[in-house]
């Protein structure tokens, strides 16, 4: 039984930005959760992504610095070329080890380590993409009791990545453009 939630980890590749931009405005300060976004992106030198996301939400948006303490109402964005992991003391750590699924940051790496720390209070969202990254991570999240959300492949710009997920594991919520409010209702579950 998943929830209530402390953290949402969003993984996205090609075509996923628009869905993130749609979700962000729903994040209001009365929702006490932290968000970690792992995008497959090319360069950290472009700070425009952080700016772009900041304009869409009341939450603070920042690129992950190593040892950042995870706080509610903050969106942490994985830096290009680093894996992001979560420690038991709820800090974020960075790792430049081998690419996973040809990616660094890899969505699997963050999903798996978040599952290990947060268990039932983790929600993972896998969005559009052309890569198989994220599916193993969703399985790990599910095994630890986390809540699994996948963008509806039919409505994703690039269906391959969410399609892999829906084919390989049960999904708790299939996300499309007009049920984001359902997702947010889940996040508003009262803390025990």
């Amino acid at each position: 039984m998943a929830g209530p939630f402390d953290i949402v980890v969003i993984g996205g590749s090609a075509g996923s930005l628009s869905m993130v931009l749609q979700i962000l405005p729903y994040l209001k300060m009365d929702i006490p959760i932290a968000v970690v976004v792992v995008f497959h992106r090319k360069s950290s030198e472009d700070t425009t992504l952080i700016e772009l996301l900041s304009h869409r939400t009341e939450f603070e948006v920042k690129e992950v610095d190593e040892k950042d303490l995870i706080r509610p109402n903050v969106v942490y964005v994985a830096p290009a070329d680093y894996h992001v992991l979560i420690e038991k003391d709820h800090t974020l750590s960075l790792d430049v080890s081998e690419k996973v699924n040809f990616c660094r940051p890899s969505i699997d790496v963050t999903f798996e380590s978040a599952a290990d720390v947060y268990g039932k209070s983790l929600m993972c969202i896998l969005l559009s993409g052309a890569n198989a990254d994220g599916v193993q991570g969703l399985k790990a999240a599910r095994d630890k009791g986390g809540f699994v959300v996948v963008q509806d492949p039919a409505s994703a710009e690039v269906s391959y990545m969410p399609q892999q997920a829906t084919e390989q594991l049960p999904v708790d919520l299939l996300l499309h453009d007009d049920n984001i409010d359902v997702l947010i209702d889940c996040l508003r579950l009262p803390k025990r």
Partner: protein
Amino acid sequence: MSYLPCYNVIYHNADMNQETSLDLSDNEIEIVLHDLVEVHGYDFVNYSRASLKRRINRLVANDKFLSFAEFRYRLRSDDVYFKHFVEEITVNVTEMFRDTQFYRTLREEILPVLATSPLIRIWHAGCSTGEEVYSMAILLQEARLLQKSLLYATDINPAVLEKVRAGVFPMNQMKQYSENYILSGGKNDFSSYYTAQYNAAKFDEQLGKKIILANHNLVSDSSFNEFQLILCRNVMIYFDKELQERALKLFDDSLEPLGFLALGSKETLKFSSISHKYRQVANKEKIWRKIR
């Protein structure tokens, strides 16, 4: 699912393919780390646990251990396997001229300061397979400083030091490194620095002549010289705060007054006890100068 808003929540009829590979628990990881100290004298206790756990579990899966007991026994009793363990769980991913702006800053702002010194001593702490050391050697050569420089390259993992000595890197990386080199302000033909041999690029021996290799562990070893520049990039991200603090003190003890300390693009001195003795160089790069 009593308190979830269940409408619109859907399930697919997919198989739950259970992973059968062995997954060590936190407690088992603790036991392994304790064994490493006790049996082999290697202390990974203060490494960032999430990354370490991931790498150990990956090793256990790759090497197809069926039980924790079997893995533990092998690691305790087999020195060859222990060497393999160290090689696999330390991160040895590195690049030439990674973070091109950083190298541009070294070239344009730091080397001209070092140039005034009669002998330039540089320490690459956690040098891995040496791509950064060779990048530095190229910068020094182009600034005509290599002859009066010594590059100390150290790592916890003895296996990588052999690779530094050889100065041979995969040929398929050279296109990327060449682009990095140009973006960092390099003016020469990058391919003039190496000879292609099938899949390998063998770097000019002149570049390797000033490199001094040593096995050094930032966890347990002490300062061994004084330097004008220490580079330790993307090494401390694997340490917890306590161990980071130890490493930074070690660097502070090993830096001459007005020396430079260079860290990885996501690392900082800011919250450490030595921060008041350092000033970050003017641009955004992660280079600090020891001012007191």
